[in-house]
């Protein structure tokens, strides 16, 4: 049963001196609409939809019909206000419900909202209070329906939502890849009782079973046995106890193992069996532990029986019994492993506590059709897993002047995201090369690296908005926020799923956006683009004079040299900052001599001697020299060979990566100079498509749907991925169903060393899928 026991938290009064931090909790209330609330036995989860107004850097082409002078920039950058949709979820203790409702009432501007969707066992209890305070009609929604809706939503939209818990592993939390098809799955909700639900499709689910022995049994029976009132305290007792003092084990009956059945001596034969035969006192800890094992094992056993009967392998656990408690996650995991001999894994969800609220919200927002969009977890506005320590005592809370709350924010993306159709196996694709949650050394390094780079980022952010005096203050807030995130990740690397270089970069972008620094590199990009354009024809001409073999090599080298120009890499940004004249030629000299660190150039050149590719998909990286002097001459050669080219660039800004709107203008300008590009554009042999991302890295499982269609329609048979972020930090091991080139210069000595090379080592990875793996 999905029911919450609301007992023992009877008093909902609170210290009136507690104030709410308006910058942190209930953000964007002024535009809030569509409220939903999920009130459980001890926690309330509030959800609302709001719009966020923030600045975006827009790039607009000048009219170039007028004769241009040398100093004129190529395009205009204007900062515009843009409105995006965001979902807010806030979790707090029931004791603060009244304060929170008052706060919302005082800050709510929008008056169109008339209804609040409500779910959870405590919803009826607070119905009158909510209606009185907010003047909204409480509309109750079925708890299980909300839970399932919420579960579908997070599984679809949040990568690394689900994890396996391994208490004794290096990393306790092992995050699972998002499976492209989330159905069918089984959800076992352990509230006061247990409900077992089979979910087959978005709106198709069924309660296939349940048990009355659940969290309420642990709590109720535990309170009777140990005279301990609170659920958390009972769990703490349990974690200190020895169940073998209370339980009758196989070895207590057999003297050892029951060998012929393979039952080990330590197996529990009879829970509480010793308290039936031994006349002695048992410690509270031991009894609590025994009870915990009894209930966890029982639930695990039932779960396995149902999984087997319905042939389900994905089994998610939730409910207040599980919610963030390592103790119960461990015992349930143990039980599932025992009963299925490892065939089924117990899965837990990062946002399990929010499922009901998310579902209730989605119920109320059905007319907005939220399921037609893709959504993204906003790292800046979300607290992350285990952010509120359940053990935080009331004294500490009172002293801090506020109360603990947990937040989740989800941004609505402008487009729907789908898998790259050319992934060999979408189900096993992992974007990230190194999982920093498991690799402690790498984690140390990268956290340090990002902390070191923070000053530079702050400086850059301020410089990008010189005309706005309050930018300094905002930049400082950004610094605090990001530093705090880094500190959190140091202690809880699992807070936002697997910690990766990508997630660190994305978190930084989210934090920058949060404080209205949408594109700190816009001016630098502009300057570099202008400068690089001036050399374009010269580079193209010098290449044309070379023999075929020489030309191919020069083009490849040019591509790599271009990639040296990267403000994202600290080693390079130092050089660029001190020496703006650092030129293309110098960059080429910096490059490692062949043989490169990873060198498949010979195979690539052999391939080029063969028939041309039908269509090449190129995931581009930096603006300026990289895109103009590196990428364009390279794809120009491909176009001449008769290969169509799709340039996939970021939809939104990230570092100095070229965005789609910038690329449109650059291409136009290049086309004006270069008849080859001009013809290709006109004949639609060169297409510019956005990738749907605003990250310096690349997740091939979340790409713009339009791009996926283009790739399919054009019969793409070559994928080129360029740059550290997209080809090294991510996708280095990605297996594609067509030929691929992964090219990058390692602009980080630590990483280069790790890969067995030095700084400015070159990775030139050319891969051809084996015949069997090819889709065509």
């Amino acid at each position, binding site marked *: 049963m999905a029911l919450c026991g609301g007992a023992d938290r009877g008093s909902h009064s609170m210290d009136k001196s507690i104030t709410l931090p308006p910058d942190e909790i209930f953000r964007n209330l002024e535009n809030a609409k569509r409220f939903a609330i999920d009130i459980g036995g001890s926690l309330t989860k509030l959800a609302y939809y709001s719009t966020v107004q923030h600045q975006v850097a827009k790039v607009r082409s000048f009219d170039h019909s007028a004769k241009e002078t040398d100093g004129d920039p190529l395009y205009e950058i204007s900062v515009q206000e843009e409105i995006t949709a965001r979902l807010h979820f806030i979790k707090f203790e029931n004791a603060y419900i009244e304060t929170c409702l008052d706060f919302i009432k005082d800050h709510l501007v929008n008056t169109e909202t008339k209804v609040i969707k409500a779910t959870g066992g405590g919803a009826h209890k607070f119905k009158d209070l909510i209606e009185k305070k907010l003047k909204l009609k409480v509309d109750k929604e079925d708890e299980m329906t909300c839970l399932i809706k919420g579960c579908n939503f997070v599984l679809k939209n949040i990568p690394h939502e689900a994890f396996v818990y391994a208490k004794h592993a290096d990393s306790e939390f092992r995050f699972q890849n998002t499976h492209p098809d989330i159905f069918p799955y089984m959800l076992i909700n352990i509230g006061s009782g247990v409900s077992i639900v089979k979910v087959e499709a978005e709106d198709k689910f069924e309660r296939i079973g349940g048990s*009355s022995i659940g969290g309420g049994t642990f709590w109720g029976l535990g309170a*009777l046995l140990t005279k301990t009132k609170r659920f958390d305290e009972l769990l703490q007792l349990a974690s200190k106890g020895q169940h073998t003092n209370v339980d009758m084990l*196989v070895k207590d009956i057999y*003297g050892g193992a029951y060998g012929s059945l393979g039952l080990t001596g330590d197996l*529990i034969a009879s829970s*509480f069996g010793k308290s039936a*035969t031994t006349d002695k006192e048992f410690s509270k800890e031991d009894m609590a532990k025994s009870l915990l094992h*009894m209930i966890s094992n029982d639930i695990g056993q039932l779960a396995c029986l149902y999984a087997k009967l319905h042939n389900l392998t994905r089994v998610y656990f939730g409910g207040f019994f599980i919610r963030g408690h390592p103790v119960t996650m461990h015992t349930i995991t143990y039980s599932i492993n025992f009963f299925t001999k490892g065939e089924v894994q117990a899965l837990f969800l990062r946002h399990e506590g929010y499922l009901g609220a998310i579902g209730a919200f989605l119920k109320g927002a059905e007319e907005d059709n939220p399921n037609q969009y893709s959504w993204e977890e906003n790292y800046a506005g979300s607290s992350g897993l285990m952010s509120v320590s359940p053990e935080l005592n009331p004294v500490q809370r009172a002293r801090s002047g506020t109360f603990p709350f947990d937040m989740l924010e989800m941004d609505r993306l402008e487009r729907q995201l789908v898998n790259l159709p050319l992934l060999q196996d979408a189900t096993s694709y992992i974007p990230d090369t190194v999982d920093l949650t498991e690799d402690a050394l790498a984690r140390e390094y990268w956290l340090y690296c990002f902390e070191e780079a923070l000053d530079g980022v702050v400086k850059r952010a301020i410089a990008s908005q010189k005309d706005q005096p309050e930018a300094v203050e905002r930049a400082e807030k950004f610094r605090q926020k990001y530093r705090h995130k880094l500190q959190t990740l140091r202690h809880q690397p699992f807070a936002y799923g697997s910690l990766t270089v990508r997630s660190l970069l994305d978190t930084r972008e989210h934090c920058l956006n949060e404080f209205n620094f949408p594109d700190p590199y816009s001016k630098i990009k502009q300057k570099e683009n202008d400068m690089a354009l001036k050399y374009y024809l010269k580079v193209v001409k010098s290449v044309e004079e070379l023999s075929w073999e020489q030309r191919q090599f020069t083009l490849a080298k040019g591509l790599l040299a271009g990639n040296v120009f990267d403000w994202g890499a600290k080693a390079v940004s130092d050089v660029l900052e001190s020496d703006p004249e650092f030129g293309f030629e110098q960059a080429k000299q910096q490059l490692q001599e062949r043989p490169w660190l990873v060198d498949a150039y010979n195979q690539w050149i052999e391939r080029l001697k063969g028939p041309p590719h039908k269509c090449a998909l190129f995931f581009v990286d930096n603006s300026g020299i990289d895109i103009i002097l590196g990428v364009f001459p390279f794809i120009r050669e491909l176009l001449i060979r008769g290969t169509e080219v799709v340039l996939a660039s970021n939809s939104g800004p990230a570092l100095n990566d070229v965005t789609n709107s910038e690329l449109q203008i650059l291409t136009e300008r290049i086309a004006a100079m270069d008849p080859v590009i001009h013809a290709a554009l006109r004949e639609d042999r060169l297409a510019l498509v956005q990738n749907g991302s605003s990250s310096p890295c690349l997740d091939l499982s979340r790409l713009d749907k339009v791009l996926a269609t283009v790739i399919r329609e054009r019969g793409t048979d070559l994928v080129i991925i360029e740059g550290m972020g997209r080809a090294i930090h991510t996708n280095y091991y990605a297996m594609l169903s067509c030929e691929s080139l992964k090219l990058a210069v390692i602009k980080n000595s630590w990483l280069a060393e790790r890969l067995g090379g030095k700084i400015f080592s070159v990775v030139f990875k050319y891969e051809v899928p084996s015949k069997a793996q090819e889709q065509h």
Partner: protein
Amino acid sequence: MKLKCSSKPAFPWFGMDIGGSLVKLVYFEPKDITAEEEQEEVENLKSIRRYLTSNTAYGKTGVRDVHLELRNLTICGRTGNLHFIRFPTAAMHRFIQMGRDKHFSSLHTTLCATGGGAYKFENDFRTMADLELLKLDELDCLIQGLLYIDSVGFNGHPECYYFENPSDTQNCIKRPCCLDNLFPMLLVNIGSGVSILAVYAKDDYKRVTGSSLGGGTFLGLCCLLTGCETFEEALEMASKGDSTNVDKLVKDIYGGDYQRFGLQGSAVASSFGHMMSKEKRESISKEDLARATLVTITNNIGSIARMCAVNEKIERVVFVGNFLRINTVSTKLLAYAMDFWSKGQLRALFLEHEGYFGAVGAFLELLKSSDDA
């Protein structure tokens, strides 16, 4: 069921099942002793027979279940009565000592024992009483014993029974039944813990699963919650209690049925769920707690058994084990649970000698083993 016994083993004939909580002993009392035999019979043997058959209680804790006695049984050419005796495993050492004092080792008999205790106490038997145990697998014994007792019947009546109208408390009646064929059956043995077996034929079975929530859990929790000391006491209290004061029902939460999922308001949503509340904890009676414990454990076993039956595609579920002794609350509840949740597909069956089949199986092995002796 025909027993294969070419030569008769020497008396006394015992079979023993040493479980986690209880020791079950079956003793064959020959009634066809000839005068000649009587003369030859050693004093030891006589005194054992007299001691066991003239008493119904042994020491403080040993009990002979007189009502289960099987009379005029002919086994291996001998006719007599089969007695059923039990005592707590905690008294095992006293029992071994008695064996020593009565010079059991001087009798040329094999002590056939099954259950975990056969392993645990093997050394004690050897060192304290100079007795060698013939250790037997408990599940083999359980099945052989069950099949044998079922075949000989219960003094002219069927061994097996079921409940008619299990869903109707007023008209729920115990009915004896004879089964032409027991196979396949799901055998649920509820001792201290629970073992669930799928039995397809006399020698073809597998252990499907087990649970640690069994009779030991019921008694253990009852002792802790109510301060009672014996199974009988615990059951007595449970018979007077009302579990709905302890358990949270569906209607306690939803005000009625949970229609979205077709759950009746009277279904238990959370065992001991009311005990999350301090006020309710303080006002609850021991009887209610005992009843709730009994209902919780029984329903859970029923639920697991039902799932196993469905997974194994077996329709006949046979419940045995000493948890069911004098426990009509549980037997009726199991009968109801099987019927209700399976919509009449599954039938719960019970056996009169509920906890003694392992010991009977061990006893039968004695008769078989004499072949080799």
